[in-house]
């Protein structure tokens, strides 16, 4: 269990940032989809830039992880176009309806918005149904 404390701490850090940046706010998500504020675009944009620079540094300097293993990022298969477009659009429907993506759903539940248990359970059901009908879906 000792090896997992670092992931717990990283998760705590993430949860606090999600709340304090107001990324968890249903209102902020509406503001984003209505193009009324730069707030969400600034957060996602700068997040991508910082992560991109970090990944480049890790790759070029061949930095190893704390367990001494080489760091590799498995590439996603870009030939599967359907799953990204159709799956992405369905996810976008859910994102705008609940006003939250998975990280914020959990962070909001922790912040005391107990009603978020409902979309979390529904998201588990959605994941399960996807697993069930996966063989018959086009990817």
């Amino acid at each position, binding site marked *: 269990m000792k090896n997992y404390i670092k*992931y*717990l701490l990283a*998760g705590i850090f993430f*949860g*606090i*940032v999600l*709340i*304090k*940046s107001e990324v968890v706010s249903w*209102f902020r*998500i509406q503001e984003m*989809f*209505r193009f*009324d*504020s730069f707030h969400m675009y600034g957060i*996602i944009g700068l997040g*991508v*830039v*910082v*992560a991109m620079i*970090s*990944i480049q540094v890790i790759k070029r300097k061949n930095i190893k992880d*704390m*367990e001494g293993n080489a760091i590799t990022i498995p*590439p*996603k298969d870009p030939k599967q*176009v359907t*799953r990204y*477009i159709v799956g*992405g*659009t*369905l*996810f*976008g*429907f*859910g*994102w*705008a*309806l609940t*006003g939250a*993506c*998975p*990280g914020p*759903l*959990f962070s909001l*539940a*922790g*912040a*005391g*918005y107990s009603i978020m248990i409902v*979309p979390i359970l*529904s*998201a588990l*059901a*959605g*994941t*399960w149904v*996807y*697993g*069930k009908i996966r063989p018959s879906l086009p990817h």
Partner: protein
Amino acid sequence: MIEFLRQPWPWYVAGPLIGLIVPILLIAGGKLFGVSANLRHACAACVPGDIEFFKYDWKKSGKWNLVFVAGTILGGFIGGWLLSNPDPINISAQTITELKALGISDFSGMLPSDVFNWENVASTQGIILMIVGGFLVGFGARYAGGCTSGHAISGLADLQLASLLAVMGFFAGGLFITYIIYPFIF
């Protein structure tokens, strides 16, 4: 110090902090940042049925991530209780006008409490927003192979074309709901 932390954090502080989660997890143990995979791990752990998609060693591949999400819940508690900002969120006036026109009146919390409450779960509006919405978050994230963290942050940062397609889908879907569907459910 506490007073300082209680204020909302601006986008140019929060954005880089979220971006840093990616190298933190890579260096901690070669893990790739992505929250929605936990929904799959939870299914694999609790209700795998006899489904191929849930037959894998979730402890080996997913335990770290379930611990991470437990931390996210705890972080939500710390951010939302101990460091909570007492003032309403400073949303743009244009968004407030448009949401008021839809009938939303309570702007005090993170969610409109006149819509997202336990009494409203079984109404048509509540079913569409919370139950159908949550279902699509879970279904869509797994179909697309990731959510906002996995595709929009990790995937774009690693220059994955697949993630760009997925993010375009996220926005197409979100805009469709916001502009076409919202007027019917509010």
